[in-house]
């Protein structure tokens, strides 16, 4: 029994925190979210590539950092803490898919993604809700991929898409003339979703069965990663809150001296710390391929979703009027959390997954 990070991961935590505090405090990253078309800084992602963060989870032989699932959680937690913009987790998931398919072209794209030269992204969903569909409508037929994918996270920035089809997983490099990509602006103004209509040449990488196996593994990593992001978002949001409670005055007192607000903050802290326990226990189980990993990952995602909604929502409430202004940062955290609750396996789907993992 041990809860501390090992030496490598502790070091990783220090370095990514330093990097993010220097490069993307919200004062610097908000213009990326709010004033660029991509929603993130390509230069910064290239730098992340140079520093090895983009290949974090890959083995050394694949040019990666072999940081494991715990290492990924460490980095994503820190990214959540500053509400780091862009498709970092999506790139990791695409890489994890690429490295599982054992295909030469895929390996080449993998290298280019790790180094930050190319964006390879997954295009899987065919509906905006989180309900399960019996079959995929996108088809692979005679070297062509036809169908519509939505929402695709940061899909407008993709150089290559990994597309799920009824026939299996297909690789679709961006054609010269581009895809028909329609922007889907959402509540979280920092996010970039698109709907992509495909009628493009592509290649089948694996059949349906193998694709399902691979993507089930990748989904676990996605759920864990989103949980770690939400843990970080709670941390960042709670830090803002505690500072504000200690500084803001009303009725002649620091508002943090009101018992009702104290207990609210205590509940926020309980949620955050419990999420931390859940995320790292799940990361550890996944890293060690333990049987209970399915239950623990699903539990972490569902619990972090509910918790982050509460923590980041109450931050707005405790800030009062200014919490509702664009200028202040609480809404950045809140909006991100609302999106993450739905993606990487929505809360209700994770709850069902938790039950099924126990044969219930």
């Amino acid at each position, binding site marked *: 029994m041990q809860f501390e990070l090992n030496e490598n991961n502790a070091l990783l935590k220090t370095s990514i925190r330093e990097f993010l505090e220097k490069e993307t405090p919200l004062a610097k990253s908000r213009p990326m979210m709010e004033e660029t078309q991509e929603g993130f800084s390509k230069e910064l992602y290239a730098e992340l590539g140079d520093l090895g963060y983009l290949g974090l989870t890959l083995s050394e032989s694949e040019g990666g950092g072999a940081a494991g699932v715990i290492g990924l959680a460490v980095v994503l937690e820190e990214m959540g803490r500053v509400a780091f913009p862009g498709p970092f987790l999506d790139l990791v998931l695409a890489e994890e898919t690429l490295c599982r398919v054992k295909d030469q072209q895929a390996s080449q794209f993998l290298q280019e993604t790790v180094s930050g030269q190319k964006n390879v992204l997954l295009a899987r969903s065919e509906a905006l809700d989180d309900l399960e569909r019996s079959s995929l409508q996108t088809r692979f037929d005679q070297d062509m991929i036809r169908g519509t994918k939505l929402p695709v996270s940061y899909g407008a920035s993709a150089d290559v898409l990994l597309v799920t089809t009824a026939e299996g997983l297909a690789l679709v490099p961006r054609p010269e003339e581009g895809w028909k990509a329609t922007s889907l602006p959402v509540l979280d103004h920092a996010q970039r979703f698109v709907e992509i209509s495909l009628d493009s040449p592509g290649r089948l990488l694996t059949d349906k069965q193998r694709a399902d196996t691979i993507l089930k593994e990748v989904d676990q990593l996605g759920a864990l990663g989103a949980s770690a992001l939400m843990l970080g978002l709670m941390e960042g949001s709670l830090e803002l809150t505690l500072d504000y409670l200690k500084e803001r005055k*009303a009725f002649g007192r620091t508002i943090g001296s009101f018992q009702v607000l104290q207990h609210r903050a205590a509940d926020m802290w309980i949620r955050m710390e419990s999420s931390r326990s859940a995320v790292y226990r799940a990361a550890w189980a996944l890293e060690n391929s333990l049987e209970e990993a399915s239950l623990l990952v699903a539990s972490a995602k569902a619990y972090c979703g509910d918790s982050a909604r509460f923590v980041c929502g109450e931050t707005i409430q405790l800030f009062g009027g200014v919490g509702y202004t664009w200028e202040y940062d609480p809404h950045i955290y*809140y909006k991100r959390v609302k999106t993450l609750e739905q993606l990487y396996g929505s809360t209700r789907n994770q709850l069902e997954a938790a039950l099924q993992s126990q044969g219930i």
Partner: protein
Amino acid sequence: MDFQFSEEQQQFRMELRAWLKENLERPWIEELRDPKNDEKKLFDIRRSWQAKLHESGYLGIHWPKEWGGRGLTVVENAIFAAEAIHAPPIASRVGINLLGPALIHHATEEQRKRFIPKMLSGEEVWCQGFSEPDAGSDLAALRTRAEPDGDDFRLEGQKVWTTFAPWSDWIFVLARTDPDDRYGGITFFLVSLHQEGIEVRPIRQITGESEFGEVFFSGALAKREHMVGALGEGWKIAMTVLAYERGSMSLAHLARFDHYLKDLVEGVRENGSLQRADVREKIARLLVEKEVLRANGYRTLATLASGQAPGPEASLEKIFWSEYSRRLADGALDLLGLQAHLLVHSPHARPHMDWAQEALYSRAVTIYAGSSEIQRNIISKRILKLPSS
């Protein structure tokens, strides 16, 4: 005991419904969705809609006829709010709902004559100058000063969270006339925004819109003839304004919620999940709470209709509708998924409902007009008589 509208009131509803059918060209959500409409344009639509309502006698429904009202009761006013759900909000909502009743109760004959008609017609749009950066929940901490200048006063200070400040003509201001008397040193002024010494800056909200503004006073003139009540009576008048803000609006919110829940039910029907028992339970709870909210609303309406002023019980309604609004929006985002996150002009957005906007707005309603925390303080002190700490 009677929770029903009278036959006359039903008649009023039918006439209004017919009038709306005739006069409302486009539902408000379509105006919002129209990319040609910027915020200024949208406000102009509200202004002309208000003018149209005024012409047809649908403004100040429960005000005395002598003040341009229709001379009916709060009940007809609530019916109007419920029926006009798809119409644009009027431009001078704050003026008509909050300042109007206060003027009728507290202003002089001259003041009423001067201000009420133009307020109704929309010729003069009003905004509210209560909150300050360091006086939000603790409103009595306000520091904007009214310094005597001959017979009149000069204002120095700053107001914030002033809805529609950028498009308003007049502001009603609480200002400090005695720095040493926390409550008795506050006076209520009507102040023109079109003068020197006033600067209005929009505040951008988390929705991206700028409905609010800040108003800076540096020597702006507040005329003595535009002071409402006596010197130092501002707090008392403000409390009646806030009671109107809290008390009389449940039914207007209910009409919104009826529409929203209907959209949510449509949404889960369309996505095929309406028969899931978990979805049904969530929707049923929203339905049940909405009926409880309506029962509370009718009960308040009955109290107001019997001539009583809204009391501290208004805090119950404020808490209930604002917190319900959050549960409803969160419920929709849970059950409709990312479809409900789409902004109003996005493809695939729900055609009759802007859930993204509502989800964000539902975080504001538990803060403004007395936060949920302040309302619970009021209940525990003024109704339950629990001791101060």
